[in-house]
């Protein structure tokens, strides 16, 4: 017998029921994330004790490590966690809406759209416009491309497979576009842009932290509101409409959230690949198929994933600072093949 925690609003018609196990796992993930926040700033070339880190963050230390912690390691840790969370959530939404375990923002071309827009912004507009608008550019690129993919996939409705196939085609154009700009830009910036395309939280700033944090804080509750709709959508469009879900409207709204999350993540850390694919699967393995719990846990798992990738990337190979995206892709691509193998009877 599964145990549940139930909460009921005293006056309104509103209630929640969450498995006890889910609550415990979410709690565990939160604690790990908290530990990561302390561990991240303390590891590096100069080792700091966790206590020292806490003191520095609280502002009661001697001040000797202020720069390392507050200007370099803490924002970097935060950005890695936040972009990971954004990507994990973005992937979960896509997999839920498209009803396909292989969907992820980087596979169906959304990240590609954001990357093109961001690289174009950096290459052609960074002189005239402030970098403040970079997230906006990345998100708009993602939105334009995904609207295009959605429209192109439309033939008496959208089938998941057509969406993925057309996404693959569009991805090819997007990567051609980014390559084009990289090849034509001067050598130094090409190296930087290539690094950035692989996905790295190197040089993360407090502005990045703020932008991503705001977007996550706004969008996560909205997605939670749609969690019942997502649950219903898993049974197919007909059943979902039967259960009172406005399928097309909800699908559009959810896709929009997903694209915004992916776009903001790209603008802060570049195209960190496969997190959007893996995080939801790990979350599902942990808590099952109820979206309310999945939404939070995908975000938490995504954050932990990118955090660990970046931690390994910057400490194990010191002094080389390897982009976190190299690690996530190195694990993610074989995982994709495994998923394909596991679902081999479906296609």
């Amino acid at each position: 017998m599964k145990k549940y925690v139930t909460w009921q609003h005293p006056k309104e018609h509103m209630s929640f029921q969450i498995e006890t196990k889910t609550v415990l796992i979410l709690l565990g993930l939160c604690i790990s994330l908290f530990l990561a926040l302390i561990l991240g700033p303390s590891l590096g070339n100069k080792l700091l004790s966790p206590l020292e880190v806490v003191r520095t963050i609280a502002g009661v230390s001697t001040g000797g490590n202020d720069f390392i912690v507050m200007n370099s390691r803490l924002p970097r840790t935060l950005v890695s966690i936040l972009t990971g969370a954004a990507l994990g959530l973005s992937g979960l939404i896509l997999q839920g809406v498209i009803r396909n375990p292989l969907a992820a923002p980087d596979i169906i071309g959304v990240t590609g759209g954001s990357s093109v827009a961001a690289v174009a912004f950096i290459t052609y507009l960074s002189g005239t416009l402030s970098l403040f608008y970079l997230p906006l550019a990345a998100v708009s690129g993602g939105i334009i491309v995904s609207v295009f993919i959605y429209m192109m996939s439309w033939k008496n409705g959208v089938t998941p497979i057509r969406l993925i196939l057309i996404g693959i085609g569009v991805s090819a154009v997007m990567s051609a576009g980014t390559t084009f700009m990289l090849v034509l830009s001067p050598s130094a910036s090409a190296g930087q842009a290539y690094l950035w395309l692989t996905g790295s939280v190197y040089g993360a700033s407090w502005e990045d932290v703020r932008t991503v944090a705001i977007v996550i804080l706004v969008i996560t509750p909205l997605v939670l509101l749609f969690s019942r709709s997502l649950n219903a959508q898993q049974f197919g469009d007909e059943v979902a409409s039967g259960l009172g879900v406005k399928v097309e409207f909800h699908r559009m709204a959810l896709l929009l959230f997903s694209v915004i999350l992916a776009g903001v993540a790209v603008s802060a850390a570049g195209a960190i690949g496969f997190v959007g694919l893996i995080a939801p699967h790990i979350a599902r393995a942990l808590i099952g198929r109820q979206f309310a719990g999945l939404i939070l846990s995908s975000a938490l798992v995504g954050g932990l994933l990118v955090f660990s990738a970046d931690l390994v990337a910057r400490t194990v190979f010191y002094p080389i600072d390897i982009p976190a995206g190299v690690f996530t892709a190195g694990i993610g691509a074989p995982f994709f093949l495994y998923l394909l193998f596991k679902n081999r009877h479906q296609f």
Partner: protein
Amino acid sequence: MGRYILTSKMKILTLAVMVLIFVLAFISSIIVGQTPISVVQAIDSFLNYNEAVTEHVVVLKDRLPRAVIGAVIGACLAIAGALMQALTKNPLASPSIFGINTGAIFFVVVGIVFFSVSSLQYLMWFAFLGATIAAIFVYFLGSIGRDGLTPIKILLAGAAISALFQSYTQAILVMNEAGLQDVLFWLAGSISGRTLDMLLPVLPFMIISIITALFMGKAINLLITGDDIAKGMGQKVWLVKVVMGVIVVFLAGSSVAVVGAVGFIGLVIPHIARAFTGNDYRWLLPFAAVLGAVLLLLADVVARLLIMPQEVPIGVMTAIIGAPFFIYIAKRGVTKL
């Protein structure tokens, strides 16, 4: 697409016209560019080569190698694509979509970075190895499961293998930043700055593969009616498939070794050729070879003109031409060929 199938006489005539177009494309590839060259100058540079005349140097050192390489690679990629479409019974099959190009690229980058190989003579073996590994992987991943080889599964397998090799290539390049710019241009696909010497080591493989492919038209026609029928008619199906696979690997691998990632030629051209010949591979393959050469030559000429004095990498050009085509076919449905 079988509406325009022509009679044999008309096919010969059409093929002749296409060869003529090819010759025109070849000439335009020699005379058009940042330094315009007249036909007279071009002929003159072949007959009385004079190193003091800029135009002569441009023709012999830049334009001619470029045109020859473009024509050869275009033909190779088109034939590779046509064979793959027959082999997998999938209209979206092509070396770039199925990860064969990225596989070859990954191994070439490994060769350059870890084994310090620089001569194409050895690099091409890395490319062959990569192409083979990717092809085998994709074919088997596409064939596992209850329904055997399905179009969707093999496409997803191709996308996954592509992503896998691409990310590992990125990893290697990011960790070895030196020379990234050189490799990057090659990665993007380019037929400029190549000398004819670079074509020589792979040329025998290409010629043998193309000739073998052209002689296989009849066998392929039988194969695409279905494995069972082909077996019933006495065909050694596995042998035909293996030979086709080897040809694909040689053609795609050697193309990548010379010009890097030039995608979509192998996807687009067989469909255009099919519009003229139907699914008759005896005709389709020669048509594809000529059309592939024409498309790559023209794409290269346009790539020179678009943003003078710089050039659009040819791989970017073919992606821009090919991707809408991919989307069109994906939309029409991948189950019919």
